[in-house]
């Protein structure tokens, strides 16, 4: 896991997964965030985040330390 932090795609993916969780879970538990736009965007960010995190990039591995 720690080694994966050297992979920028993984870091960006985790960032968007976290933001998506704020939007989706926030929308479920708080009226202030319960908005269709938050859900749609949250799910889009989640899909993007998962793809970025787990896409295998040979290039990135080359520069890992």
């Amino acid at each position, binding site marked *: 896991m720690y080694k994966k932090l050297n992979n920028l795609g993984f870091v*960006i993916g985790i960032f968007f997964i976290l933001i998506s969780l704020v939007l989706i879970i926030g929308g479920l538990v708080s009226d202030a965030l319960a908005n269709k736009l938050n859900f749609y965007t949250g799910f889009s960010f989640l899909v*993007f985040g998962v793809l970025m995190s787990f896409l295998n990039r040979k290039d990135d591995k080359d520069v890992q330390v």
Partner: protein
Amino acid sequence: MNLHIADYLIIIIYFLFVIGVGFIIKRRIKTSNDFLTSGRNIPLWITSLAFISANLGAQEVLGMVASGAKYGIMTVHFYWVGAIFAMVFLGVFMMPFYYGSKARSVPEFLKLRFDEKTRGLNAISFAVMTIFSSGISLFALAKLLEVILHWDFEVSIWLAASIVMIYTFLGGLTSAVYNEVLQFFLIVLGLSPLVIVALHDAGGWSNIKTLLQPQLTHAWRYMGNAESNPMGINFMSLIFGLGFVMSFGYWCTDFLVVQRAMMAKNMNAAQRTPIIAAIPKMFMPLIVVLPGVIAIALLQPAMASKGFSIPSDGKGGLDYTMTLPSLISHYYPTGLLGVGITALIASFMSGMAGNVTAFNSVFTFDIYQSYFVKNKSDRHYLIVGKAVTVAGILLSIVTAYIAKGFNNINDFLQLVFSFVNGPLFATFLLGMFWKRTTGHGAFFGLLAGTIAATLTHGLTLAEGKGGWIYPLYEIHSGMGQAFIVASVSWIVNFCTTIIVSLFTKPKPEAELTGLVYSLTVKPSYHQDKWYLRVVPISLILIAITIILNIIFF
């Protein structure tokens, strides 16, 4: 605009991530080259996205949305005329010299091709410009947060500067570039929902075209006469002034962007960096121009029920700079509002960090190491590079406070930048493609070009600006004036460099190998698949750009 705890949480997550990237990269930094040039070890997709992200600062994001609202779809010229062709030219023709010469910076390339004084002139003017750009970016961020969120100006300045300082100090250029890529995705994905929702609300592009004057929805049709389009320029000024002089001057010679391509792993990747970057750049108007056009459509009487508004500028007009914040405030609910505000903050920080990292490379290599302390250990230059990073941030803060005290300093500095940058491409063009060009020719050409730019501005008047020597000639718009100033400076530099070169002694050909087109072995990629080769991708990009221009003609 009021933020909810969820909005603050998103902003905090972003701050933690950019600082975290700095800590992760810190372990890789062993030498001054690691810190200041990334050791030429960065993957292509990262160099490409960093290449356009370095240009995706706040002035770009807020400014292009504002221009979209003010000038309409004509603003796409800054992309489809003023960027793609120059980026392709950089990749195909110029990167082999920059990368192949093993220069660590653009000023260092000038030293190799010409002489020390040309390098010194470029390095000093570039260092000063980057600090001022960084400071203005910081000032604009604090001012925006003060206006839209009522955050304290001082807190915003010191918080943003501290975060940029932490991650650039820890990880140098690599850290700045990695964060630029994160910021790129945040800006694009954070603003995409806004475009979709606002476009839907405005009834789609076809409805926008019926609501607005045709001058605002056609890119070329009204360019025949300067008086018949909102930009106040004709197609000749646009093509030569923006499409050639300003565009090539920026994309092909500005170290801030060229540095990203110079970080690539090999020549092929360095050449493909600006070309791959041109793909998202081509579609960037969807994110930064279209919202401005939509905003103006929403202000039309037929759309009054939507309740959208842009604040007044206090002089009877609209404050176009506030177009994007107004759209975010109008359409984004709590949560997504945090994403939108974070995207704006990211664009400011990206612009600032890009300038600071370019400044520390040029200052350390081209000023400190060249003129003050030579032949010291690598560790010495690594420490100096880090100290210069801190100094660069502190100078940016000072500039931000100066900008706060003097309303017109931004305009003044932009003007000075155009005087210095306008003629620069002529120097590179002659230097790379005419082996007879001499160091004296380059130096005096640059000086003459800058003086010509100053005189042209002093003798022309547009929208109340310029004409400070004598208002000899009136130009329809400030933008037209900027194009004319840049064009005159370029032509004067070009002619002066040729004349002086013909009367001075050129460098021996043996010293110009790898620096001049006719004396350089061209890289060949015939063994690679077509999509990995520079020329086929470039031709496809140019074809798509022409098609886009035709579609929005």
